[in-house]
């Protein structure tokens, strides 16, 4: 089949509308909120704090620990039973690895920085939205960072390479989903996953699309952090 017009009418290299905020969870050390289309993610940072269980402590530097979760009512079908699943654990691990290259925890031996990601509403691209929110949260928390991390899904539906798949596209039988996370300044990749079948040339194009989207996402993340300080104190 030929995918001529996207289900929601977007151009193939067009992101859904994005919004972001910082400092939305007051009890956290730092927090972020990122919304792309109908996918919405909160992220909160706690720490650096003492790491438990103790045997996981690293005496040379702090440990980053991510916890990804979807709220039971967040997805498009049935209720999702609360609690960790194999899927959410894997997403937690890859999220952690996506953020680790930019975070410098050498000043915090034996400590942990916990990042909690919760999604109240989902429409594909959840791990990417989570990473974007987490990046804002870490910066908001004042964790030393060498770069911001921007994440988006690229992919292919039938014969078209495209950016930011929604659920309908992601679950399409001829859909290939490629979540990517990039460090904004260096454009180095810290998250790369793929499911489906794709020629290497197509993959290169998809990554190029993600690279361009990265700059757009960065602007929104940066603005979210700036706005927090521009608000007049009450």
């Amino acid at each position, binding site marked *: 089949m030929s995918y001529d017009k996207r289900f929601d009418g977007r151009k193939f290299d067009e992101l859904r509308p994005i919004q972001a905020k910082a400092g939305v*969870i*007051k009890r956290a050390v730092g927090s972020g909120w990122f919304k792309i289309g109908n996918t919405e993610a*909160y992220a909160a940072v706690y720490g650096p704090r003492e790491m438990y269980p103790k045997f996981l402590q690293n005496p040379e530097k702090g440990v980053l620990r991510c916890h990804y979760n979807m709220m039971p009512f967040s997805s*498009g079908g049935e209720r999702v039973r609360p609690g960790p699943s194999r899927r959410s654990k894997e997403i937690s691990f890859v999220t952690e690895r996506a953020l680790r290259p930019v975070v410098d925890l050498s000043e915090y031996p034996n400590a942990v920085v916990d990042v909690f990601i919760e999604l109240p509403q989902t429409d594909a691209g959840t791990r990417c939205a989570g990473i974007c929110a987490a990046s804002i949260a870490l910066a908001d928390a004042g964790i030393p960072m060498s770069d911001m991390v921007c994440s988006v899904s690229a992919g292919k539906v039938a014969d078209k390479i495209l950016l930011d798949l929604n659920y309908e596209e992601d679950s399409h039988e001829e859909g290939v989903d490629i979540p990517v996370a990039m460090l904004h300044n260096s454009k180095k990749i810290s998250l790369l996953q793929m499911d489906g079948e794709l020629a290497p040339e197509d993959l290169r194009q998809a990554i190029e699309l993600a690279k361009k989207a990265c700059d757009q996402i960065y602007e929104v993340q940066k603005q979210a952090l700036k706005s927090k300080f521009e608000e007049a104190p009450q």
Partner: protein
Amino acid sequence: MDGRKPDEYRPVTIETGVSKNAEGSAKVKIGETEVIAGVKMEVMKPYPDTPDQGSMMVNVELFPLSSPEFESGPPDNYSIELARITDRGIRESKTLDVKKMCIKAGEKAWTVVIDICTLNDAGNLYDAISLAAMAAIKNAVYPAYDGEKIDYKTKTKEKLPISKLPISITVFKYGDHLLLDPTNEEDKSYDARLTVATLENGNICSLQKGGDTAITADDALMMIELARKRSAELRKLL
């Protein structure tokens, strides 16, 4: 501590329809405390002892995202109590008419599952959670159902059968003083608390006492009276 009168609530806001995939949802803020409730519906076989009735379930998730004091893991006593208090206020008052949720007696009936998740704990989760649950079921609609399968992507315009609006208010006792809506600094040091759910007609539909200190019957009645007086204001926001 923040200059409020003892029986004064922080600003309360309710926003409904905040989670588009849920059959109903609501976000409640009381001061900086923020919770989000979502309703999901399923079709199940009714319980054998109530073959012509639907059912409901309330679950509370105290996310570590919302407070440094919450840990990941199965529900602890605090979240179980919060869920059961919320459940009681709705169930025992027959707010949700479960008889109207039967599709075919003995075979199929609707189940309503209400999940309330915390986003920021700045004290008084009891009232925020109950209010969010009530606002979410009031916002909820049935998903499309053809007799065999639910089409969650298509929501009907048919609301759930709700006939009452219970409001839950928790009164906290510190020595001789009664307080409403404590912040999280105040939330820990109380002697006793009483959660009172009140209906529009002034009747009480659920009670839960907590705290380590015993109270007199007069104390309890005073606390109930305070809760009844304030419930009308919160009910206006629904």
